[in-house]
């Protein structure tokens, strides 16, 4: 009797090997918590570094080793899809995360320590803060949070089930809310950023969740493959489904920072500690688009003709609004924030094509953008004044004189953003435009062309400031970082150039793996 009942319940299949990247990062996070619990704080930093970097390393190798053709499968009862794009996204996230981790670990730049508050609990400018700073304490909880976020992302981009998607979203977002608030300097802004990010993020995920719920109510399943079957088979009450799709779309578009759901981006990017910003602009963007791709290509692919026009509109708006507002920014960090918005728009252009090349194009763009942006933010951390980072553009005048290297690398990334050939940015733009035109969105491409012309202005203005103007007295100075940041910058520069000169390497890899499992 019992036996029969038990037999009706299938034993859940769980492919530990294939899921190992996610699990490892998750494990690392838990270990991190234990470290926080049991190690004296002077030992913690070292322990965390060991744990996190080994974990990332392991996870990455796990990805590389298993991402082969026979490593493509729906696992965990079809709730996680480890297909070509999934692997690639995971790999990218891990690499970008590694670079961000290097920035997190950097503690040579700021005389007071790393980029994070000594004690988040202390009042900004309060007595305790001074003490904590003097004692050289550090908020080492950032590390477990960081690991959680990564594991969330890894799951998010492979989630093949709306519920998993939601959980992954939260796992990746909640730590970020906290990290956003942990800046060592300008703490008021940092905390404000955290608050805004949190409230809006919560709102967005609620919307996403409700969308999922409606989808479930309509199709009777949460698993993407079945959802699309449900959609194509069912025929009743499309209104419900429409609402569902719209809500899910909003939840995702919020994460990618598409207009009109973008307004959190500038504030949060500006307020957060720069390493976190780079992490958000790099890894989170990749993750968010990864999720978006999968949901809309796999689950809602059947309805492409319905949602594509809207994506076109959103993409156009995002490119134009992002670029235009960025034009007026006087703060480098904020400018990059808007630039990240407009880049999101360009990615959406590629995304809207919904074809195999489109997937490849989006992935390439994500890689190109993620590395370039991490590099740019990393460089920003080196340009300082007594009060901390100097991100007021006008003060960068004549930086090229003080440090040709930093200014030169910065120019490289700016040119890449502007999409000048022989940099990764061009390869990326070429890819998405090609995809879009093949998808018949020529008009959208023209909008994109205009947008990138506008965008070029503020990227190039940075170069002009750094190289073509005389330095101002008591302007910012450039500090020499430790090996950590150096590696991060070098890596991003190399990727930017390689992708520009010999894109074929990456293109082959990606276009061979740009099919979603369903």
């Amino acid at each position, binding site marked *: 009797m019992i036996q029969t009942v038990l037999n009706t319940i299938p034993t859940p299949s769980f492919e530990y090997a294939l899921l190992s990247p996610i699990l490892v990062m998750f494990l690392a996070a838990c270990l991190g918590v234990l470290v926080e619990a049991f190690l004296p704080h002077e030992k913690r930093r070292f322990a965390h570094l060991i744990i996190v970097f080994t974990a990332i390393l392991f996870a990455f190798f796990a990805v590389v080793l298993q991402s082969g053709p026979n490593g493509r499968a729906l696992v965990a009862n079809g709730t996680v899809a480890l297909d070509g794009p999934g692997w690639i996204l995971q790999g990218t996230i891990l690499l970008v995360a590694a670079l961000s981790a290097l920035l997190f670990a950097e503690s040579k730049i700021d005389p007071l320590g790393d980029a994070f508050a000594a004690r988040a609990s202390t009042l900004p400018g309060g007595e305790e803060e001074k003490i904590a700073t003097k004692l050289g304490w550090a908020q080492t909880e950032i590390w477990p949070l960081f690991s959680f976020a990564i594991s969330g992302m890894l799951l998010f981009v492979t989630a093949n089930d709306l519920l998993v998607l939601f959980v992954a979203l939260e796992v990746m977002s909640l730590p970020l809310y906290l990290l956003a608030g942990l800046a060592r300097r300008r703490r008021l802004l940092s905390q404000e950023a955290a608050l805004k990010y949190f409230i809006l993020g919560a709102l967005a995920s609620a919307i996403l969740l409700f969308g999922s719920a409606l989808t479930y109510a309509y199709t009777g399943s949460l698993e993407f493959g079945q959802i699309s079957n449900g959609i194509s088979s069912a025929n009743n009450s499309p209104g419900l489904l429409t609402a569902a799709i719209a809500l899910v779309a909003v939840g995702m578009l919020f994460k990618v920072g598409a207009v009109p759901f973008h307004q959190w981006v500038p504030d949060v990017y500006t307020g957060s500690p720069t390493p976190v910003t780079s992490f958000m602009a790099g890894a989170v963007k990749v993750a968010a688009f990864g999720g978006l791709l999968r949901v809309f290509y796999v689950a809602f692919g059947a309805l492409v003709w319905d949602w594509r026009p809207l994506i076109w509109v959103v993409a156009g708006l995002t490119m134009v609004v992002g670029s235009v507002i960025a034009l007026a920014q006087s703060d480098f960090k904020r400018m990059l924030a808007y630039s990240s918005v407009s880049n999101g728009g360009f990615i959406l252009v590629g995304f809207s094509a919904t074809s195999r090349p489109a997937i490849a194009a989006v992935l390439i763009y994500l890689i190109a953008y993620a590395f370039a942006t991490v590099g740019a933010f990393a460089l920003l951390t080196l340009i300082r004044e007594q009060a901390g980072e100097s991100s007021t553009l006008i003060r960068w005048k004549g930086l090229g004189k003080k440090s040709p290297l930093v200014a030169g690398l910065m120019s490289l990334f700016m*040119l890449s953003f*502007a*999409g*000048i*050939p*022989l940099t990764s940015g*061009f390869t990326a*733009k*070429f890819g998405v*435009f*090609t995809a879009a*035109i*093949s998808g018949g969105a*020529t008009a959208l*491409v*023209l909008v994109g*062309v205009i947008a*990138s*012309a506008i965008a*070029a*202005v503020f990227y*190039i*203005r940075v*170069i*002009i400031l750094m*190289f*073509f*103007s005389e330095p101002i007295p008591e302007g910012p100075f450039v500090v020499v970082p430790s090996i950590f940041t150096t590696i991060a910058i070098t890596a991003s520069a190399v990727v930017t150039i390689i992708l520009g000169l*010999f*894109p*074929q390497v990456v*293109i*082959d890899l990606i*276009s061979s793996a740009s099919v979603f499992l369903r």
Partner: protein
Amino acid sequence: MNFPWLLIVLLTPLIGTVLLFIPKRFVAFSDQQIALYSSLITLLFVIVIALQFDISSSATTQFDVSFDWIPVFGITFHLGLTGISLVLVGLTAVLTPIVLLATEYEVQKKNKEFLMWILLTQASALAVFLARDLFLFYVVFEAMLIPIFFLVGRFGGPKRGAAALKFILFGLAGGLVMLAALIWLYFVAVNQLGRGTFSITALSNELKLDAWTERWLFLGFFFAFALKAPMIPGHTWLPDTAEQATPGTSTMLIGILDKVGTYGMLAILLPIFPNASIEFAPVIIGFAALGIIYGALVAIAQKNIKRTFAYISISHFGFIVMGIFSFTSIGMIGSVIYMVAHGLSTAGLFLTAGYLIRQKDNSLISNFGGVTKAAPVMTGLFLIAGLSSIALPGMAGFVAEFMVLTGTFQKYKIPAIIATLAIVLAAIYMLWLYQRVFTGTETKESSNIIDLNKKQILALSPLVALTLLFGFYPAPIIKISESTIAHTMTLVGATDPQPMIRKVVNQ
């Protein structure tokens, strides 16, 4: 694949650039020497190539070098030599060492950087003229902006930042539109030829576009080329840039790089979009004629020497474009010669005037007067360059202008007549400038001008020599470009009009 001459030509300046940054204890030469020698070696290679170039061959390109670059899009790194590109490569190879020699230590502090950018400019110019893959062409077309951008912005006058920005934005605007057209063209090719290709030869020989698509694609490319060339009304970046840039930069930019615009029209627009070219030709010819007169008139009114040159160039680019779209062998070959002549005269004007301006750090015409008293040699060289640029017979400029006008006159009477008016205006702008700067009573500024030294004269004398040579013996250029032009004519399906009255056999 035979010996990759073109690749070597292309690499030489790049190697030179690298050598610049090798610590001095490893290389025996000064930066100046490294740059100069590498450019001279390039020239040597180009001469070698020119000697091997087979003018009778029917092949579209020679010395082809081709590697796969981005196979998924059928993109190859394909260098090839047509007659026209040989001419322009030659121009590049000749002008660069002259610029390097003439502007020696033009910038005291950042000399190394200056040389680097000049060499990179040369490399990109060579690459763009040699590219036989449209994608490669586009990439260089855009990348080309960077060296000039830095040359202008780093070494220019007080307003150089703004000028540099304006320059690069115009460049990007054109380039991005071209990019859209490029991608569109790619898909047309994919759908029609069943394979993605950017090979200029393939596109021009195999592609059959429907009228509507062809028109739009043509316009997309033409927009970019017209901004680069520059044609009115897209010309306003040139005066600002020329005013701020150093003479060396201006020479590289106006003398060489701007030719990419006209080269593009001749080597890309016409072969790939023949019907649209024919269709739009009257309009373009009209604009060209307008630009010729407009540029000349505005040039007369300028108060600044460099700006004057800029507007003169605008007028001259009008001639070049006119010749190209006249669709007559005479006109097109005339344009090719015109590109060379304009390159030489522009170099002469900017470099000689450059010596003057650099000494006073001021390019206002009103500043100078009676310079010839202090600097007769400078005056003489300037006059020669100026006379060539106003197409005085016996100078390269004359042959070019006459052929362009005749070619155009064969098919478009009125525009040709309007353009011919420019010979009067040319006399006015050039001689009036000459009169105000070099003759008349000597002003305080120009009293202590130092005349050119031996090295500077040596640097400029090749310009004079070539100007006169091509004035009296243009055959080399004609012969080299003939077959390519003929090929283009057949692609476009244009024929040379016959004389109205059958010609009586010449004795």
